[in-house]
C-alpha cells in the first residue's frame, strides 16, 4: 500500500474530527447551563431577609417558576407631571444605584419638556444586597413624602448620591437634606422609622418583581418595559414617549 493510500483514511478522520470536537463542546456547554439553571442554589444570595424587603436578586426573565400576577404597588404613587396624562412613565429606581443617578438628570429634562402631557411615577426598588443605604434612602424619601416633599428629597438624594452612598450612618445626612428642603425635622426622623413607610417601599418592590424588573433603573411607558438603550438615551426615550402619545391620539 502506498503512502498516499495509507494517508487517505487519516485525512478523512481529520476532516470530521474538528466538527466532532465542536459539537461535543456545544453539547457540554448546554448541559452545564441546564445543570446550573436547575441547581437550587449555586450562587450566594438567594436568601431572603426577614426585614423589610428581600435580599434576593429579582429574577428578570427567569424561566424557573411562574411570575406572580401584576401587583399594584404602594397606593397613591409619587408622580410628577400631569395627573391625567395619556402617557405614564413609571420608573423603578434605587437611590443608591449610580445609573439611576445618571438617569435622574435625563428624566428631569424629559419632565420639563413634556410638562402635563406626561405622568412620571417613581417606584422604590432598593437593591439591598448590593446597596447598603438604598433602603434607608427610600425611607427618607417616603418620610419626606408624608410632608408633601417626596420629590424634593428624591432630587436631593440623587443629586448628592456620592455624599451618602458609602456612609456608615447616612441618617444625619438625610436629616440635613430634610432641613434644607424645609421639613419638620422631628417629624421626619420619626416618620423614617414608621412601619407604613417600610410597607410602601415593600409594596413598590413587590410590584417591580411582579413586572419582571431585574435591574435598576427600569422604565415602563404605559405598562411596556423599555429596553436599556432607550432608557439612557434621551432622544430614544423621547421617541418612545412620542410614540405612546401618538398612539393615545395626543
Amino acid at each position, binding site marked *: 500500500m502506498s503512502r498516499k493510500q495509507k494517508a487517505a483514511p487519516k485525512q478523512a478522520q481529520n476532516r470530521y474530527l474538528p466538527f466532532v470536537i465542536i459539537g461535543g463542546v456545544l453539547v457540554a456547554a448546554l448541559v452545564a447551563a441546564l445543570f446550573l439553571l436547575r441547581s437550587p442554589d449555586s450562587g450566594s444570595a438567594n436568601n431572603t431577609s426577614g426585614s423589610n424587603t428581600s435580599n434576593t436578586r429579582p429574577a428578570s426573565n*427567569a424561566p*424557573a417558576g411562574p411570575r406572580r400576577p401584576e401587583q399594584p404597588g404602594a397606593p397613591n404613587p409619587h408622580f410628577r407631571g400631569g395627573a391625567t396624562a395619556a402617557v405614564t412613565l413609571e420608573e423603578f429606581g434605587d437611590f443608591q444605584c449610580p445609573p439611576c443617578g445618571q438617569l435622574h438628570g435625563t428624566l428631569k429634562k424629559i419632565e420639563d419638556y413634556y410638562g402635563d402631557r406626561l405622568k412620571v411615577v417613581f417606584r422604590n426598588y432598593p437593591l439591598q444586597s448590593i446597596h447598603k443605604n438604598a433602603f434607608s434612602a427610600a425611607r427618607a424619601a417616603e418620610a419626606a413624602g408624608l410632608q408633601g416633599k417626596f420629590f424634593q428629597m428624591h432630587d436631593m438624594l440623587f443629586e448628592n448620591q456620592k455624599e451618602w452612598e458609602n456612609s456608615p450612618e447616612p441618617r444625619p445626612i438625610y436629616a440635613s437634606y430634610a432641613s434644607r428642603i424645609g421639613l419638620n425635622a422631628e417629624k421626619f426622623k420619626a416618620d423614617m422609622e414608621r412601619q407604613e413607610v417600610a410597607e410602601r417601599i415593600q409594596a413598590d418592590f413587590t410590584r417591580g418583581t411582579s413586572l419582571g424588573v431585574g435591574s435598576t433603573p427600569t422604565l415602563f411607558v404605559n405598562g411596556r418595559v423599555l429596553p436599556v438603550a432607550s432608557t439612557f438615551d434621551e432622544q430614544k426615550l423621547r421617541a418612545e414617549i412620542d410614540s405612546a402619545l401618538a398612539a393615545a391620539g395626543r
Partner: protein
Amino acid sequence: MSDDYAEATVGAGRGRLWDALSGLVALVGLADAVYLTAEHMAGRSVVCMVVSGCDKVLMSPYATLPGGYPLAALGALAYFTAFSLAVLACFGYERARPLLDLLVALMFASTLWLLYVQAFVLEAFCTYCLLSAAVTTTLAVLALGRRLPGRKARLQ
C-alpha cells in the same frame, strides 16, 4: 523534501499550536460566560471573589441586552464561535484564521469598553468580567503571536 517545504511545514505546525492554545483559552471564556448566563437567567447572585462589585456590575443595565437577555449570553456565543474557528484553523481550515482574528479584535474592543464601564461608570468590578477580559486579552495576544512567525517566514 525541499527546504521551502520543510519551513512551510514547521510554520504550519507553529500556527496550529497557536490555534490549539486559542481554542483552549476560548474554552475558559466559554465556561465563564455560560456560568454567568445561567446565574442571570436563574435570577441568582454570583459568588464574588477577590473584588466585591459583582452584583453591582451584573445587575446594572449594562449587563442586559435589549429584550432582557444577559450580555453574558452574547459572550458565550462569541467564545463558542472563537473556539470553533480555532479548532477549524488547527485542523487546516485556513479560512477560519482571518475570521478568528476579526472576531477576537471585536471581542477585545468590547472588553475595553466593558472595562471602561466598570471602572468609570459603575465604579465596581466583577471577578467574572475581569476573568473574561483576561481571556479575551490572551486571545488577542495569541492572535498577534500567531502572525509573527508567518511574517518572519515571508520576509525570509
